[in-house]
């Protein structure tokens, strides 16, 4: 059995550029093996650090920034928002999320009843709406801060996304298809930049591997000058290739997050992060 999985994995590896239909488990093994083989010197656990796992210079600068991390204010503000918000019915976020500790690893998950992928950001707004409050913006601001607070208190927990049952597999497959589809005037798929070209330079920017992409969000980007969610980054990458970007928590983006998170299973959450 082990041999068979290995065989299929190496076969899948050879075909990584095309859409695979080998099933989530085998695809995940091939995805990881691709990066592990491509970057044999990178510690497998270090892929959660994106481009800083690959480039020594960039890493040194990043380590320096991490001494006074610019996302710290967002964690503090997120904590206040999480603990002090009272909805009109008198309830708080605690009614939906308990203490908020070790919560991140529950997401994203496939909700069979609602037949869709639920992310942590979606759950925050679901909680608000359930208690009569207006939803927050999905890519920036208070919601990203609450998400940063929750991520911080889930650091070190293991990513463990479950894809099981035909509806969940369908959502996973949709996310995968989005990931592999070329789009935009410049005709790029996510895979073109974050798999085949990972570690290479686009102009002066080194491209990060997709393995580990979801671990450290939300992210404080120096370019943004603020904290932003994973879906803010997705839409940035869409616009970069002159493709239409989508609203935060669109079905496509949630399926994409589901797929990418599953690919990063067994790695650890280390959010929030800071990026250039």
């Amino acid at each position, binding site marked *: 059995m082990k041999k068979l999985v290995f065989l299929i994995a190496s076969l899948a590896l050879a075909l990584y*550029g095309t859409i695979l239909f080998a099933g989530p488990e085998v695809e995940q093994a091939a995805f990881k093996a691709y990066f592990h083989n491509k970057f044999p010197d990178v510690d497998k656990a270090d892929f959660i650090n994106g481009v800083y796992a690959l480039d020594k210079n960039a890493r040194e600068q990043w380590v320096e920034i991490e001494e006074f991390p610019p996302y710290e204010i967002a964690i503090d503000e997120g904590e206040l928002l999480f603990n002090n918000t009272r909805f009109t019915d008198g309830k708080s976020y605690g009614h939906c999320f308990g203490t908020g500790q070790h919560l991140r690893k529950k997401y994203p998950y496939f909700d069979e009843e609602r037949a869709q992928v639920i992310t942590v950001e979606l759950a925050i707004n679901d909680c608000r709406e359930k208690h009569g409050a207006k939803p927050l913006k999905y890519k920036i601001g208070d919601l990203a801060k609450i998400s940063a607070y929750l991520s911080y208190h889930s650091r070190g927990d293991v990513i463990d996304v479950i894809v099981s049952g035909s509806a969940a597999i369908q959502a996973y497959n949709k996310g995968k298809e989005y990931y592999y589809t070329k789009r935009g005037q410049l005709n790029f798929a996510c895979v073109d930049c974050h798999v085949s070209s990972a570690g290479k330079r686009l102009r*002066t920017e080194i491209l990060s591997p997709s393995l580990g992409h979801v671990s450290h969000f939300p992210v404080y980007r120096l370019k943004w000058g603020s904290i932003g969610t994973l879906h803010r980054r997705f839409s940035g990458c869409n616009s970069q290739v002159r493709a239409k970007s989508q609203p935060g928590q669109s079905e496509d983006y949630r399926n994409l997050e589901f797929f990418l998170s599953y690919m990063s299973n067994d790695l650890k959450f280390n959010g929030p992060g800071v990026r250039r």
Partner: protein
Amino acid sequence: MFFLISLSSTYALSKGTLETETTRVEQGEKLAFDRKKGNCLACHTIGVGTMSGNLAPPLFAMRERFPNPEKLVQQISNSLLNNEDSIMPPFGLHGLLNEEQISKIVDYLYTL
């Protein structure tokens, strides 16, 4: 007299062609480097261009390696014909560059 006139007009003509050739090459280089046009440096090392990426082969000795200009035009206009998974944008097909612009870029590439 007739001989003189024709000589001078040939001279003018060839001088004119020479001038347009230089400008075509210059324009081609500009188009290739311009971030809003070819932005070829995003991926390729080319000539005197700086801050280039390295996710595609460097462009050099183009006349020796691509004696047929049609091939170059095709690679720029629609890279997908040579490699359906190419990550190089199909500049002509997607309206990023028109035929004239691509032809100028090819003129420039032949100086490398």
